[in-house]
C-alpha cells in the first residue's frame, strides 16, 4: 500500500532525525552495543557451522556478549540526562557499577569457558 510505504519512509526519516539529536556519549554506548550484538551473531553463525560442542564455551561466548550489551544499555539508561528517575544518580556511580558488574561477568565467563 502506498500509504504504508510512505508511512514507513516517514517513520525512518523521523527516527533518523531524532536519533541524530542524542548526545555523543550516548551514541558511543549505542555503537558499543551494536558492535557487541554483531559479535554475538557471528558466534551463533559459527556455532551453526561447526556444531555446539563444547556447549559451555559457546554459551560463555554468547552470554558474555549479551551480558555486556545489557549492562551497557543499563549504563545508558542511568547516564541519560533526560531520565527523571535517575536524576540524583551521579554518572560516576553509574559507571562504577557498570565496571563492577562487567568484572564479575567476565570472571564468571572465564571460569565457565572450560
Amino acid at each position, binding site marked *: 500500500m502506498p500509504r504504508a510505504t510512505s*508511512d514507513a519512509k516517514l517513520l525512518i526519516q523521523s527516527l533518523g532525525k531524532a536519533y541524530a539529536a542524542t548526545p555523543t556519549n550516548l551514541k558511543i554506548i549505542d555503537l558499543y552495543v551494536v558492535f557487541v550484538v554483531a559479535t554475538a551473531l557471528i558466534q551463533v553463525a559459527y556455532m551453526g557451522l561447526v556444531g555446539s560442542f563444547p556447549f559451555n564455551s559457546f554459551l560463555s561466548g554468547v552470554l558474555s556478549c549479551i551480558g555486556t550489551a*545489557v*549492562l551497557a544499555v*543499563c549504563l545508558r539508561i*542511568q547516564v541519560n540526562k533526560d531520565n527523571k528517575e535517575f536524576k540524583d544518580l551521579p554518572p560516576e556511580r553509574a559507571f562504577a557499577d557498570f565496571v563492577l558488574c562487567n568484572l564479575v561477568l567476565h570472571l564468571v565467563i572465564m571460569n565457565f569457558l572450560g
Partner: protein
Amino acid sequence: MAPPALDSLPAPLRSLRLKTKQQELLLRVSALALIYVLAFAVRLFSVLRYESMIHEFDPYFNYRTTLFLTENGFSEFWNWFDSESWYPLGRVVGGTLFPGLMVTAALLHRLLHALSLAVHIREVCVLTAPFFAANTTLVAYAFGREIWDSGAGLVAAALIAIVPGYISRSVAGSYDNEGVAIFALLLTFYLFVRAVNTGSLAWALASAFGYFYMVSAWGGYVFIINLIPLYVLVLLVTGRYSQRLYVAYNCMYVLGMLLAMQIRFVGFQHVQSGEHMAAMGVFFLLQVFFFLDWVQYLLNDARLFKSFLRITLTCVITVGALALGIGTASGYISPWTGRFYSLLDPTYAKDHIPIIASVSEHQPTAWSSFMFDFHILLFLFPAGLYFCFKRLSDATIFIVMYGLTSMYFAGVMVRLILVAAPAVCLISAIAASATIKNLTTLIRTKSRSPQTTSGKTTGSKAAAKGAVDQSLPFQHNAAIALLLGAFYLLSRYAIHCTWVTSEAYSSPSIVLAARGHNGGRVIFDDYREAYYWLRQNTPPDAKIMSWWDYGYQITAMGNRTVIVDNNTWNNTHIATVGRAMSSYEDEAYEIMQSLDVNYVLVVFGGVTGYSSDDINKFLWMVRIGGGVFPVIKEPDYLVNGEYRIDKGAAPKMLNCLMYKLCYYRFGELTTEYGKPPGYDRVRGVEIGNKDIKLEYLEEAFTTSNWIVRIYKVKPPKNRS
C-alpha cells in the same frame, strides 16, 4: 522533648538523656538482638534433651560429604566419585549435589578454627540451621522495612523467628538444604525488590549473588526463577513498566543465570529446560518493552508510533511463538520434570512415578497442618493482603504474588509450607503492625483532644465539640480493648509455637523416646546400635542391602557400602531391591547373589510399637518393584484388597523375604501381657506364620528392642 521525670536525675546521668530518635534506635536494635537470640535458642530443644547429633536421613549424607570436604579439600570434593553407595554403580557425588550447605558449614568450621576454637565439624553441622534461621530474621526485618516500614519489619522478624512452618526444617540437628536455602531465598527476594525500588546496578548484582547462593543450596531455586519473571510480567501488564525494573531484572537474570550454570548439578538447564523458559521469555519481552519505550520517546508522534507498534508486535509475537514451538516440538527444550510437574497436576505422581508419591512429605496438605504450622498467621494473612492492596507499590505487589503462589504450592505439598512461611510472616506482619499502629494512634489522639477543646468559648462550636467528645471516650475504650486483644493473640501465638517446637519438631528420629510403665522416659537407641555393630563386626568391603530410607545412615555411621540410598536416582536399582524383598527366599537369594549382597538390614517395630517400620512400608516396595518387574503383582499380597499379616493373610505375603526377616523367631516372643506370643504391637494382631526357617540367610544381629535386624547372606554351598 525529654520526659520531665529525667530532669530529677543527677547531673552526670542527665547527659545520657536520649533524644526520641536515639531512643527509637535503641529500642529497635535491642528488639532485633533479642529476636536473633530467640530464633537461635528456640531450635535447641533436641540438643538439650538428647545430645548434639544429626537427625533424620538426608542430613547424614550432607554430614558425610561435609566431613569429606573438610578432610580432603574443595577440589577433591568437587570431583568426588563415591563407590560406597549404589553398589555396583557408584555415584558421581560432585556432580549430583547442591554444594551450598556443605561449603557453608566447612567455611564456618574453618573460620572457627582460625579463631582457635577447635570445634568438631559435627557440632558446626548441627548448629548451622539455627544460625541461619537467626540470620533470616534479620533479612525479614530489612525486607519488611523495604515493603512497609520498620515497625512491620520488626513484627515480621519476630513472627518468622518462631513460626513452626520454618522451625520444622531448621531445628538444631536438621542439617538439610532447607536450613540454608530459606535464608538465601528471602535474601534474594529482598535484594531484588530493593534493586527494583532503587534501580541501582549494585543491588541487582547483589541479588544475582543471592540467587547464586540459592541455586547452590537447594533445588527449590526453580521457584525463584519462575516467580521473579511472573512478577515482572504482572508489573508489565498492570502498566508499571519502568527503567528501574529493566535495570534490575536484566542484570539479575544474565548474571544470575551465568553464576547458576557454574553448579555442575544445574548445568545447562537455564537454557534448555522448560522450567526455566519463563525467565528467558520475560527477558526478551523486557527488551521489546524497552525498545518500544525508546522509540516512542524519540518519535514524539502518536500516529507514526502506532503503526510502528503494530509492525513490531506482529514480528515479535510470530518469532517468539515459532521459537517456542520449534524448541518444544524438537525436544530441545525439555518438558517439566516429574517432581515439579506434580505440583501443577497433583495426581500425576501417584499414577506414573510411585517413588515420588511414596514420600510422606509430598502428600497434599490437610487444614490441620496449616493451623499447626501457622496458627494466627492464617487469618492475619488475608488481612495483610487487604493492607497491601490499599497501598499498592512495586514492593507490595511482589509480596502479594509471593504469598499467593507459595500458599498455592503449600496446599499441594506439605513440604512446601516451608517456602510459604516467610511470605505469610511478612504479610501478617503488615496486618499486625498497621492495625496496632492505627489503634495506638486512635488512643493517643483521644487523650490529647479534650485539652484542646477545653479552651473554646463559642457556643455552637462548644456544643458540636461536646457532641464529638461524647463519642470519643467510647472509641478510646474500644481501641484499648482491641489493643489488649491483639497482644493476647500474639502471646497465644508465641505459646503455641514454643509448644509445637517442643512436642512435635524436636525429635531426632534416629533416637526414639517413649514413656515407660512408671512414667519415666525410655530411650530407644537401636538404630545407632545396629550401625555401630555393622561398623565393628563386618568386613570393610561388606555390602548391605536395605530399603533406600536407611542408605545414607548406613554409609555415614556404619561406614559400609550400600546397594540403594535416599538419593533415589536409579529407579530400576531400587525396584530390584524391592523385588528381592517381595520374592520368596530362593528367588531373592539369586538377586542378592547378582548384587554381591553380604548383609540384609530390616527395620521392625512389632516389639516396641514403632510404626515407621519396613512392614508398614512393604506395599510401597511391592509397588515400586512391580513398576519395573511385572512378575511382582500387588494383589498377590492383599486379601480382598486388604493388607494383612495374620493367619488370614495371602500366602505370598506370609512367605516373602521381608516377612521372614522381620518375624524370624518373633513367634516365640511375648510382647504384651495377656496376648499370645507373636503379637505384633503395631498391626495389633497375632502373626500368621510363626514357624519361620531361613535357608539362605542366618541371623547376624538383632538390636536390644528388636527394631533393627541384620542377617548375613550365606555363601553358596560347595557342592551344587
